[in-house]
Structures are given as structure tokens and as C-alpha cells.
């Protein structure tokens, strides 16, 4: 009885995606803070992280069949990946929300954020991003998910979507000439991450395609089956287009704000689309290994 799972769909994809964006935006904010101290780009990361995470948690909450009992998921912190995640996300949310509040109150004044808070935040941001992959990675019944490559892939994608969110946020809010330098280095970092994402995805699909288990059918469904049109749109729009745009930005070496606004925003939107599409697709092609009397 093998079959495609229909247990988790869009709401969970959005949940995993937004948790990843929150983690990625936070990590990028921390990086910018480390490089430049208090500045608008870093503040944008802080500003995005907590709300994204909050919305992500809401998606999880409303996807539960009995949401009003969700407190029960806190009772056994290490019993299940969902409980681990509940704790990790909650702690990360508290840290990010506290920094968000400070940032909000500071307005024009200079912002003081303690190193201890940053370090704790970084640890839980990484944990959150990795967790979104581990959640699926531990499911043995679905071999396509059951690999440590998935947390790696989701972590890389989280950083990339976080940078994407930051680019979009800063550029839409209105960037100043002084921000262009740091936006450039973020897009350069993202170039590396998108490159890594392509490599890891390729490796992942190759490994799974060789599998004798149901994972091979998942790969088929993804690259040549019913999910193929969406998958190739994702590859082009979510990976290749932002890669080329960021490549262009870095090759020209022009620190013009105008070209950053156009290419940066476009790349950021594509990255966000790609992050959501990736999570949805991986959920959608989860095929059960299945059992049979004819063996």
C-alpha cells in the first residue's frame, strides 16, 4: 500500500517556510549587526524575524485538528520532533520578540542589544532552521524525507530566503545610499547559498533517485511526473533567476542604488517564492514506503 501522503499540505509548507524566513532574516541581521553595528538593514532583520515566526506558529496552530489542546505539546519536551520544535520555536520567538520590542521602542535613538541575547538568538535561529528539516527527516515511513540531507537543504534555503526577505524589506521601505554596501555583501553571501542549494538539491535528488525504496518514485514524480511543471518553474524562478540577478549585481560592481533596487527586489521576491515552493514540493512528493503481502 504505497501512496502519496496527503496528511500535511499547504499550511505546513507555509509554516516550515516562514519559520525558515524568520531564522534566515535573524541570522542575516546578526551578521550585519556584527559587521556594522546598529543600522537600518540589521533593524529590518530584527523587524521581520519575530512577526514571520509568529505567523508561522499560527499556521501550525490552525492546522492542528484540536488546536485548543496545543499546550499538551509542551509537556514532553524531548518526546517528539514536534515537541522539540514547539520549544525551540517558542524560545526563539521570545528572544526575537524582545529584540523586536527594543528595536521598536528605540525609534531614531541608537539601539542597544546585548551580545548574550544575540548569541542565544543565533543558536535558536539555527536550531529553528535545522528543525524544519529534521521534522520531516525523522519520518522513516517516507524514505524521500528520511535523510540528513533534508535539514541541510532546509537550513541553506532558510538563510537564502531570510536574505531575500531582508532585501525586499529594506528596498521597499526605501534604502539609502549608505545601505547599498551591506546589501551588496548580503547578496554576495546569498550567491554562495543559492549555489550551495543547487548543489545539495542535485545531490539529494541523485541519491534518492538511486534508492530502491519509494524515494525513487518521489524523485520521478518531482522531476518528470505530476509535480514536474511546478518543480521546473521553481528551479528557474526560485533558483536560477535570483542567482543570475545577484551575479549581475556583483559583476557590475556598481554601487548604484537604482540597480540594487531593481535587481535586489526582484531577486528577493524570487528567493521567497522559491523557498515556499521547495517546501511545498517536498511535502507533496512524500510517498510512503508501504507494506505488502507479496514480497
Amino acid at each position, binding site marked *: 500500500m504505497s501512496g502519496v501522503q*496527503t496528511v500535511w499540505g499547504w499550511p505546513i509548507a507555509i509554516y516550515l517556510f516562514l519559520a525558515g524566513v524568520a531564522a534566515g532574516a535573524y541570522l542575516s541581521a546578526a551578521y550585519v549587526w556584527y559587521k556594522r553595528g546598529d543600522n537600518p538593514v540589521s533593524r529590518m532583520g530584527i523587524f521581520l524575524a519575530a512577526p514571520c515566526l509568529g505567523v508561522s506558529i499560527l499556521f501550525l496552530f490552525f492546522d492542528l*485538528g484540536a488546536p485548543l489542546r*496545543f499546550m499538551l*505539546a509542551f509537556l514532553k519536551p524531548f*518526546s*517528539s520532533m514536534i515537541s522539540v520544535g514547539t520549544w525551540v520555536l517558542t524560545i526563539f520567538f521570545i528572544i526575537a520578540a524582545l529584540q523586536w520590542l527594543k528595536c521598536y521602542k528605540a525609534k531614531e535613538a541608537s539601539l542597544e542589544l546585548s551580545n548574550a541575547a544575540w548569541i542565544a538568538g543565533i543558536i535558536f535561529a539555527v536550531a529553528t532552521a535545522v528543525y524544519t528539516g529534521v521534522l520531516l527527516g525523522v519520518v522513516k515511513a517516507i524514505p524521500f524525507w528520511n535523510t540528513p540531507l533534508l535539514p541541510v537543504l532546509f537550513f541553506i534555503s532558510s538563510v537564502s530566503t531570510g536574505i531575500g526577505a531582508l532585501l525586499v524589506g529594506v528596498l521597499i521601505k526605501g534604502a539609502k545610499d549608505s545601505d547599498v554596501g551591506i546589501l551588496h555583501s548580503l547578496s554576495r553571501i546569498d550567491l554562495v547559498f543559492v549555489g550551495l542549494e543547487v548543489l545539495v538539491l542535485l545531490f539529494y535528488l541523485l541519491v534518492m533517485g538511486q534508492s530502491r525504496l519509494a524515494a525513487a518514485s518521489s524523485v520521478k514524480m518531482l522531476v518528470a511526473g505530476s509535480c514536474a511543471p511546478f518543480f521546473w518553474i521553481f528551479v528557474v524562478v526560485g533558483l536560477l533567476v535570483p542567482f543570475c540577478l545577484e551575479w549581475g549585481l556583483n559583476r557590475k560592481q556598481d554601487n548604484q542604488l537604482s540597480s540594487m533596487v531593481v535587481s535586489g527586489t526582484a531577486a528577493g521576491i524570487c528567493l521567497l517564492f522559491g523557498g515556499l515552493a521547495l517546501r511545498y514540493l517536498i511535502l507533496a512528493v512524500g510517498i510512503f514506503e508501504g*507494506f505488502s*503481502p*507479496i514480497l
Partner: protein
Amino acid sequence: MPRYGMAVDLKKCVRCRTCYITCKVLHNIPSQFDNGRKYTRVKLIEPEAGKYPAVRRFFYPSHCMHCDDAPCVTVCPTGASFKDKDGIISFDPKKCIGCRYCILACPYDARYFNHETGIVDKCDFCEDKVRQGKEPYCVEKCIGHAITFGDLDDPNSEVSRMITEAGAVALSPQLGTKPKVFYGNMR
């Protein structure tokens, strides 16, 4: 403490579907469909094998295998799915938050999500009856006496005897969950 398990002798099974109906009626399971999958604790699986003209159709009732290493228990965040002392993989509806992680973790497709209640449901070997010393409904009502239930650790129990006589084996043991439901005379 017994270690409960079940055996099905497919040679005695007359394919009457009583186990499926009786379970559904007596456990008050609603009649809706979930993405084409019936709301049910017992599934009737009918795969075909071979090539024309040598084709065979199999038929076997399947429900929770009450795995000794049950992945559904490992993934449950609240303890709603748990293993009882007598080996029954039990379920506490009051603790279930409806996350459906257990449905993904179960390789035997034994659980379904009930949209009416917002929680999952599965076969519990009719544990309330079993603890009163009775048999599960499907065992009791099977017209071919094809299903037995009892203590796997007792070599003289009915279930142990059927396992030996019918050469019963677990389905797809390579999945590694150590099921406690066995099928005999499979071919």
C-alpha cells in the same frame, strides 16, 4: 503480563468483510471519506500479482499492527499514542492535538484523521473488551474463524498455535517496527 497479538489465517478467510463492517458499526466510526480513504480501523487490502493468465488477487484485512517498536508512539508529542504494559498500542483521545504526525510515521497506513472530531483514530485491539477477558469484535464475529487473538508469549494460546500451524509471518518485516499481527497461508 501478557503480550497481546493477533493472527489471521488467510486460508480460512472467506472474504466476507465482516471484520470491516463489524468494527465500523460497533465502534461508531463515521461513514465519510477522507481523500478517498475510508474512515475505518480495519482496511481490506486487495492487491493483484502476476501477469495474465497467471494472475492472483490477494485479500487480507489489515489494521494496526501494534508494533513493538511503534514509530507512531515515538513521534507523538503529547503521549496520546502510547504503548500499554500488555503491548497494545493504545490511544488517549483526550490528549491528541490532531497534528497527524503519527499518520505520517505509521508505515502500515493504520490511522485515519477524523475531521469531525479533529483527532486521529486507530485500532486498539478493542482494549476495553480485552481487559474484561473478551475478544476483539473482529475476532468474535469472523465467520470463518480466521482471526485469533491472545498472548504471544504463551505457546499454548490460540494465537500462538495459529501462528505455528499456518506459518504466519508479519507483513513487510523489513520496515523494522516489529508488528504483532501475523498472517498465515499467504500464498
